[in-house]
């Protein structure tokens, strides 16, 4: 368990969290490599299917991260995402997924430090949760 390296898929919006990740990079900040980013234009674009697919493909946790409330580049996409994640969190446990494996955060374009910090913390927490073995128990 100690050498468990979680796989985390993060759906990040182009305008805020992706830019923050870029900033973290150009500022030479380090964060664990367990997080893989998938850039989307806005968190409002993240179909619940994407989240489920990520879990089924083998992700130990899924992060959706976008602009702070009120800052969405497309007016209110992040509010739509928030509603959707809330519903997903209710549904996922019925399939045996720990709802703590799905996260939603807001990280603004200038918050490179915050991005690196959030990623480090997330990886630590998921490491503590252990591997996501629901998939193996499922009859697919």
């Amino acid at each position, binding site marked *: 368990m100690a050498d468990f*390296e*979680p*796989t985390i*898929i993060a759906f990040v919006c182009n*305008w*805020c969290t992706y*830019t923050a990740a870029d900033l973290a990079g150009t500022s030479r900040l380090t964060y664990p*490599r*367990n997080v*893989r980013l*998938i850039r*989307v*234009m*806005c968190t*409002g*674009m*993240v*179909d619940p*299917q*994407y989240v489920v*697919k*990520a879990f089924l*493909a*083998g*992700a130990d946790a899924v992060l959706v991260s976008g*602009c702070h409330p*009120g*800052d969405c*580049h*497309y*007016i*209110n*996409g992040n509010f*739509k*995402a928030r509603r*959707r994640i809330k519903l997903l969190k209710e549904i996922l446990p019925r399939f045996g997924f720990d709802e703590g494996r799905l996260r939603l955060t807001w990280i*603004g*374009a*200038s*918050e490179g*430090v915050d991005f690196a910090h959030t990623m480090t913390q997330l990886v630590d927490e998921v490491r503590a949760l252990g591997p996501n073995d629901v998939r193996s128990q499922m009859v697919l």
Partner: protein
Amino acid sequence: MRERVKSEAISSLEEGFDGVLGLKRRWGQVGPYLFTDPTELNEMEIEPKYCHAKAIRSLLESDPGLRIAAALRGCDVRALRELERLGRIDLGGLRVIDIGCSHEQARECNCEKPTYETLTCTGCWKCIDACPAGAIERINVCPILVPSEWNEKLSKRKAIYIPFPQAVPQKATRDSDHCLRTRGVLECKGCENACDAGAILPEDEARIDEIEVGTIIVATGYDAMDPTPLKQFGYREYPNVFTALEFERLSNATGPTRGKILIRDEAGGFTKRPESVAILHCIGSRDVHYNEHCSRVCCMYALKYTHLIKEKVGHDTPVYDFYIDMRCFGKGYEEFYRRCQEEGAIFIRGKPAEVTDQAIKPEEEGKLIVIGEDTLLGRRLRVPVDMVILCTAIEARADSTDVGRLFGVSQSPDGFFLEEHPKLAPLKTATDGVFLAGTCQGPKDIPDTVSHASGAAAQALALATRGYVEVSSAISWIDPDICAGCQTCIGLCAYSAIEFDHLRGVSVVNEAMCKGCGSCSGFCPSGAAQVKHFKKKQIFAELDGIIAAIQAVGV
């Protein structure tokens, strides 16, 4: 107008003035004439415009005891006041009978600047007519006195005022928060009666105009930090501790002291010359408790002040500059630093700890004492001075968050607006067509602001003159073969870019309006709506690729 001028002229003669200078038609021509007989005044003319300043000067010079009245226009009065300021004339014996210029006249003289619809003000200054007592206490018809924002509240202004001498357009404006009339306190008509142009509209109100534009340049500038919370520097506690902006007004020719660098006396008036001055750099800048950033301009304006004090107050006036580092980064800046050193300014490396009035030595009595350390000499210092100037930080404006949201511009951690890219797109923002100019993006001096703003203007124009815009290819498309016509997407679209085609029973994306946010694709129950380049197939392929790689070689 003529009647009023005439009746004032008559009463002047009755009051015993030696004569009234005005215009009279003689030998077919209108020229200056000194009326001494009230019956003659019937022939007095007020048109055309004629400048009397020279005639008055020679009249008063030839006989200093003369008491005359003169029918004068605003420009004449200003000329005379200037002569008086220069000591060339004594206006003690002169009474001014005002002629307000007509709108046509003002236009002819080019006295008039571009006009707003509601304001027919000609900028004649009559309503703010300069009082010989000084520019600060401009006596005008308006009875209200409000601290002047332009002069950093060091002087007063009226409730009707021209915001500052170089204001464009140069027009009076009414402060409806203070005006007795607009507040409904009193039926005051002072300014209305005085204004011959009829520019003051009693029922005029601020209104909001909506203007359609293609590009926007945000140039909202900065806030100068209020040093009151930094109690150790004694701002507001000691009357002769000033902020840099206050000093800026005190050394300015149009400021409350007409450019004389003076400090407050016991009564609070600006009458005393400072015998020594301390300039404290980096107040609230480069300070983890307030602003981590460097305000960039303070070193250089502090040097400007150092030089101005030496020049205006006297070269023997000791000026102490307390600095952390001198950052003289621009063209000619290092040379200017050297020049100030050669002029004898004293530069002390070390940010002062405190400003106090508690004397412990006889030479400190009645002075402000700057307590600090010279970190180059490793020595503690107490420097008694008469005047302390705090070079306060340049901060993002307090309303930056709201303004940023309005234009879809985010902020850097220091609060200033975030450019699209620090090197490749320093004028652009993440929102197409919105550009940044000047200090709203970060502290800058005027040369840098002007360069930044010129660039922003050019980029905005380039976009506007082209006449068309390129839209991103990453926009939504609804597959009509899959769309079930549920119309969920229509309610979700923040840009009203989706319409329902009743004929085919499907939703259709308007490509010119779609911004590609994908709200529709995220929700579409049948998966018909997809953003190009971000289709489900593409995202899934990306996901599979990532996971396959991790499974093959580990994270």
